[in-house]
């Protein structure tokens, strides 16, 4: 797969994700509406929410993700190596300088976000900046910039926000129905059906497969290998990224503020052993085995 086919496949994927999300999300609301005997107004509500979320996730997903992990802008004086490595990599790749952010977390990790190279953001944890030398930092940043250049980040960030929205709404519906069940126990409208079973049905039929499909679309092992190879080409030093990955995998603890929705964005899975992520995410491993990536890089 060349970079160009990768870019167009990512753009198609994003379109597909939006279509899928809007259709299923609206359908889900319609079902809820039918249950309450007011299908059409719930349908409208579903369309409005899913449209707003889709448009919003395209334009603002990067700021949302940065906000959700608590990132602050990097400064040249304070984070000299990070900042200059970012400058160097954008010179080498011939793209505008990405915005650089820092998350206060001792677990070394990094991610990129942004819908295109003009709106690129690279974010690193303070733990990463502390233990990496310049060559390793350049490797990590080059890897992230490759994701942006290939439009991987468009797909991945959009999915983050959509998955986040789904879990939020599912949570909200569950709660309101739970309380609704207590209030409306003798209501004729329910016709004796158990609302609890109905919720389970909806979750099983719509929410779970939707989330699963979205995450599956967002992750791609091939994409990680491609970005690693790109990084090697950009820095001309594959060893830098290889030893950075080694250091990251050697660190025992995971990140504090990573969530199910953002896990696949990071250069290495932010949930370490001992701290389980969501079962849904664990179904699909979000990253190829780090040992394998290091081996491939070392052989370059």
């Amino acid at each position: 797969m060349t970079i160009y086919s990768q870019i167009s496949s990512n753009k198609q994927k994003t379109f597909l994700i939006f279509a899928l999300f809007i259709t299923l999300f609206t359908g889900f609301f319609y079902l809820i509406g039918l249950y309450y005997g007011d299908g059409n107004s719930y349908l409208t509500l579903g369309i409005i929410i899913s449209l707003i979320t889709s448009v919003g996730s395209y334009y603002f997903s990067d700021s949302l993700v940065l906000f959700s992990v608590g990132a602050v802008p990097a400064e040249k004086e304070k984070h000299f190596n990070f900042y200059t490595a970012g400058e160097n990599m954008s010179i080498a790749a011939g793209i505008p300088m990405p915005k650089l952010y820092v998350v206060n977390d001792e677990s070394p990790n990094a991610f990129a976000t942004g819908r295109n190279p003009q709106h690129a953001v690279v974010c690193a944890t303070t733990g990463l900046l502390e233990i990496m030398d310049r060559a390793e930092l350049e490797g990590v940043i080059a890897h992230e910039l490759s994701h942006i250049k290939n439009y991987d980040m468009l797909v991945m960030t959009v999915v983050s926000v959509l998955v986040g929205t789904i879990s939020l709404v599912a949570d909200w519906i569950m709660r309101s129905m739970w309380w609704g069940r207590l209030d409306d126990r003798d209501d004729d409208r329910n016709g004796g059906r158990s609302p609890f079973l109905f919720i389970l049905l909806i979750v099983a039929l719509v929410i779970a497969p939707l989330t699963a499909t979205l995450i599956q679309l967002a992750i791609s092992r091939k994409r990680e290998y491609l970005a690693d190879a790109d990084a090697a080409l950009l820095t001309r030093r594959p060893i830098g990224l290889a030893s950075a990955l080694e250091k990251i995998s050697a660190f025992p603890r995971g990140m504090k503020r990573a969530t199910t929705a953002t896990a696949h964005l990071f250069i290495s899975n932010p949930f370490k052993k001992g701290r389980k992520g969501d079962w849904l995410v664990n179904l699909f491993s979000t990253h190829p085995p780090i040992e394998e990536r290091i081996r491939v890089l070392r052989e370059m």
Partner: protein
Amino acid sequence: MISTGFILIGLAVLLVFYLIGSYNGFVILRNRIQEALSGIDVQLKRRADLIPNLVETVKGYAKHEKEVFENVTKARSSLMKADTLTEKADANNQLSGALKSLFAVAEAYPELKANTNFEDLQRQLEDTEDKVAYSRQFYNSNVLEFNSKVQLFPGNIVANMFGFKIAEFFAATEEERKKIDVKF
């Protein structure tokens, strides 16, 4: 025959489209090379601008190393004067060599090494050196793309027609010419 006429006209139109497309392709690539070249110039200028400050700082501690200062200053002025790509590349390499001996000399003066100003300049120079290397790498990869297009058939015919000539690579120093092969 009318149909042969149509076919001929059709082919001529296709040819014209091809010519326009590939001419524009050459122009875009050539402009990109120009931009990449000015990217190198920015970094070289930044590098040259850091030198006088560095020399002043080092002089404060190591007055007697006249030869080293002269070499650095000479290399700097030849970099400032350089016009062609080869001259620039040579002057840049010369400056790298001179700076290396300057920093080697600095090793012998612990007070100088402890000077925060010196430390900062050294850091900035190292950074600029990296940036020169990366901007050169970007320039060269653009030149490679352009040259391949100019030389490969049938683009070479169009290139000849409009006078597009292969561009010059920005030569790297010996130690930077390391081969790397990428696979995944």
